[in-house]
């Protein structure tokens, strides 16, 4: 694994990572269950957005915008159905994130931890922005654009993302 932050112009140099059958589905289910389960025992864990981290990781790894978009939609809709939000709110946000992550993954090498940290933080902020925008425009539910809790959550998720992605790298087909 290349440990340098390698920005490459040619897409042909970017490796598309494959995973064993069922890995993505299992990771998605595990992330959703943990997301719904952890805060009961560790209240601080509610700042995590594991489904988002999974969307970003597999988007960046698979590097196929169609797959990323569909994966984002699937994860977002599942998250919606486990929340009190209207079905589609997180679906829309994660569809966009899945598409963008896989598009960026197809252009940049995103293996370096710093790159992963920055991308996860940026995607988290964008995801939150889309959620708030949809809530304001479509649902007429005013929500704050920025809170300190959100900043904390952004940093915590970005740090966790770096470690989680490193672990998920081991699930790739060699």
């Amino acid at each position, binding site marked *: 694994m290349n440990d340098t932050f390698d920005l490459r112009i040619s897409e042909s140099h970017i490796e598309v990572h494959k995973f064993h059958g069922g890995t993505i589905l299992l990771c998605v289910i595990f992330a959703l269950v943990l997301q719904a389960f952890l805060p009961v*025992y560790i209240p601080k864990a509610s*700042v995590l957005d594991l489904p988002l981290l999974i969307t970003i990781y597999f988007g960046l790894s698979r590097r196929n915008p169609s797959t990323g978009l569909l994966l984002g939609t699937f994860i*977002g809709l599942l998250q*919606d159905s*486990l929340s009190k939000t*209207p079905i589609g709110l997180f679906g829309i946000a994660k569809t966009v994130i899945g598409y963008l992550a896989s598009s960026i993954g197809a252009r940049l090498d995103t293996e370096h931890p710093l790159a992963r940290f920055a991308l996860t933080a940026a995607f988290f902020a964008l995801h939150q922005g889309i959620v708030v925008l949809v809530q304001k425009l479509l649902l007429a539910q005013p*929500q704050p654009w920025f809170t300190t809790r959100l900043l904390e959550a952004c940093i915590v998720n970005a740090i966790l993302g770096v470690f989680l992605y490193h672990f998920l790298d081991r699930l790739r087909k060699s």
Partner: protein
Amino acid sequence: MLQVLMLAVQIKRDSQGRLIRVWTVSAVSPVERSGAWGIGKVRDAWRHYFALSDTARQNEELIRENGQLKLEIMQLQSKSAEADRLASLLNFKQKQAKVPMVLARVIGSSADANSAVVYLDQGLHEGIRKNMGVITPEGVVGKVIESYGDTSQVLLLTDRDSGVSAMIADSRIHGQVGGMGEPLLDMKHVGADEEVKIGDRVVTSGMDRIFPKDLPVGTISQVKPGTAFKQLRVRPSANIERLEEVIVLLTTDPLTLKQEAPAAGNAAVTPPSSAQPISGLTNTKPAEKHP
């Protein structure tokens, strides 16, 4: 595009995509239930066999007893205050009716970090319906917003969309207590000229027809002047951030604290799935029969 249309349909029809939610919750809740069961077993084993077996057990007993006593004190205080205020107006010889309730375990929380929602391990099969009140012996927790076969979804008091009709216990000043997405609650509609001080107890007013009157909601923790209304922050009585077991009031009929009640009941020790009457609460309508 499809999701935007779905959102529009849900808002237009006031529908919440129940079918998709039922599928997902049905798929996920057994895993959560198993997890909760597993963690409970491991924790029990640790507490009872590896770490101070007797002390842990005694501690549990004392916490339970403490909860019962708090509930009893609350009911006695309420009875006394209400008797003073309304003795000449009310007939305290109301026939005692039993209010069914059920103890439920918290098995999961919302997959959305922005909302304060938990899942319980009891649902339609135990008679839990939408808009039923959820409490602990310490105070109000929230209300049921969705009920499935063996699971129900509870909107906690700390959620931004949550609200309960409340009043200051001593002065009887009415207001609306709601969540702000953080541990403290917000009390609205209390006039700027009203006298409220830090430490005042806030209790339910019963006006929302979900919670009985005089259940503890919290205590005033911040008071700031405002132009028309005071800005009040309330610290919840119930430990909403660390809920493990809650009581669901199995009725959506208006409730009121009854006047002549036996000692506080065994609310905190009632095993799950057995609906028991909560002592001190009477139902103003005949008890609803849930299939």
